[in-house]
């Protein structure tokens, strides 16, 4: 974990409530896709944990959903402002487990960490398929970005206004065989993916956090391998250890 000051270079809306925040700063502590950062906001006591969408030396990209007063304040932030951010939090996804044909499944605000993961896996020569699940066409974001880096993309919408009608599991049957599943999204979606998948995989969980780095025990969960802290031992759990 590192504490650093980042400068906002872009903060724009992708959809009605999803925003793209691009920051300049030291990203050297971000070592795996699926990790998150924790952002200090003026006027708010707790930091805001946001998953890493993309990270390159000196450049950090975060996609966040406006869900409350903290993220509403983030949406108002301007280019040039600086933010105090803790980076390199959480375990992240293990890219060595992917096999040749990994399947990446993101639901709603769970899509962003799939981007850096897809980029890393494609760089390793993997054939990457991404399923992105949304409620409706107006919520869809980042489809082009995934296609641009060479991923095969399936979009599902619950109301059928774009792509396959239904939940992400509707697309899983169309994708066919895969070697491993990486997923992030609302817990009911994770559970549906878990039940529909025939292969092992890694599932990223969300929980209200205090510190984000393992000190307060605010986000503990039980697993088959003992108690874990979502922020430090997670947010990524392996399929084998999850207790629903």
């Amino acid at each position: 974990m590192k504490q650093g000051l980042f400068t906002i270079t872009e903060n724009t809306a992708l959809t009605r409530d999803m925003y793209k925040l691009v920051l300049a700063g030291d990203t050297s502590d971000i070592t795996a896709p699926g990790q998150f950062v924790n952002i200090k906001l003026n006027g708010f006591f707790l930091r805001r944990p946001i998953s890493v969408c993309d990270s390159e030396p000196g450049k950090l990209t975060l996609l966040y959903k406006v869900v409350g007063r903290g993220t509403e304040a983030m949406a108002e932030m301007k280019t040039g402002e600086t933010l105090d951010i803790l980076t390199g939090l959480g375990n992240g996804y293990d890219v060595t487990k992917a096999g040749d044909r990994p399947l990446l499944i993101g639901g709603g605000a769970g899509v962003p960490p799939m981007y850096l993961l897809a980029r890393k896996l494609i760089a390793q020569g993997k054939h990457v398929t991404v399923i992105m699940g949304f409620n409706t066409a107006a919520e869809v974001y980042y489809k082009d970005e995934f296609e641009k880096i060479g991923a095969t993309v399936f979009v599902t919408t619950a109301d059928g206004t774009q792509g396959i009608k239904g939940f992400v599991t509707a697309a899983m049957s169309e994708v066919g065989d895969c070697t491993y599943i990486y997923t992030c999204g609302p817990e009911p979606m994770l559970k549906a993916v878990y039940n529909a998948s025939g292969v092992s995989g890694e599932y990223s969980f969300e929980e209200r956090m205090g510190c984000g780095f393992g000190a307060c025990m605010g986000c503990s969960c039980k697993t088959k391998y003992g108690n874990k802290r979502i922020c430090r031992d997670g947010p990524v759990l392996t399929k084998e250890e999850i207790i629903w």
Partner: protein
Amino acid sequence: MNTKITLSGVTLKNPIIPASGTFGYGYEFAELYDINVLGSLSFKGTTKEPRFGNPTPRIAECPSGMINAVGLQNPGIDAVITEELPRLRSVFEGPIIANIGGFSVEEYVHCSERIDKEDGVAIIEVNISCPNVHGGGMSFGTSPEAAAEVTRAVKAVTKKPVYIKLSPNVTDIVSISKACEEAGADGISMINTLLGMRIDLKRKQPIIKNKMGGFSGNAIFPVALRMIYQVYEAVKIPIIGIGGVSSAEDVIEMMLAGARAVQIGAANLVDPFICRDIVNDLPNVMKKYGIDDLESIIGGAH
């Protein structure tokens, strides 16, 4: 410039102590900085049996603070002594405060007996004030008789100084602190969190699964300060001040109210380097206010 203070014969190089439950068993923070700069540290509240704690969500934000309902998650006294304490000793050479929780007098006694044999532990801090556990916990901290009973029982089984950690969720904290002193307590740690609540406007339900939890952070500083000031006038034993401290100025203010040392809690969770930074700032702030020796300002506002 002297930042040294003593607590019941234990010398601390400075009065800065991370509070129990916000610093784990130290080693996460030891990865970030050399925690030997700290005066002491109070480790995560430990009970006789391992505990998972309460269901999640356990955390809610507040203006200038937060609510937690962790519920004393810990691996139990046996694992703490065989695993956590040796690991903590490998990264921290200073005096350790062992924070003990319990649900019965027998449990407090059991944990204190075990801790009494541990050389690295300088002080036992008895938490009779956790608001997040049912069937005990805080109930010992809400009556002078029960607080005195726990104090006497623990004192009977250890030679180490015993500090009783008090709850602010009482009508008269002064009478409880006096009861602890009369029962033989070597010191008072105060205050634990204030019972609080938040409601999620979208779900129209409490944010915390347990409905209520302990409110901490900058917002509670004036409440803690007032209670320390009151208790300082009523007892002769040392007070470790706790509650909303997040700067060297806060440390000095709390010492002026009567604290001999100061614990930093919720601030660690939003700024993991805060204790180190306060240790570094302290001499400058002392100079600014014309203070040469911290011992000389304890209770100075009375």
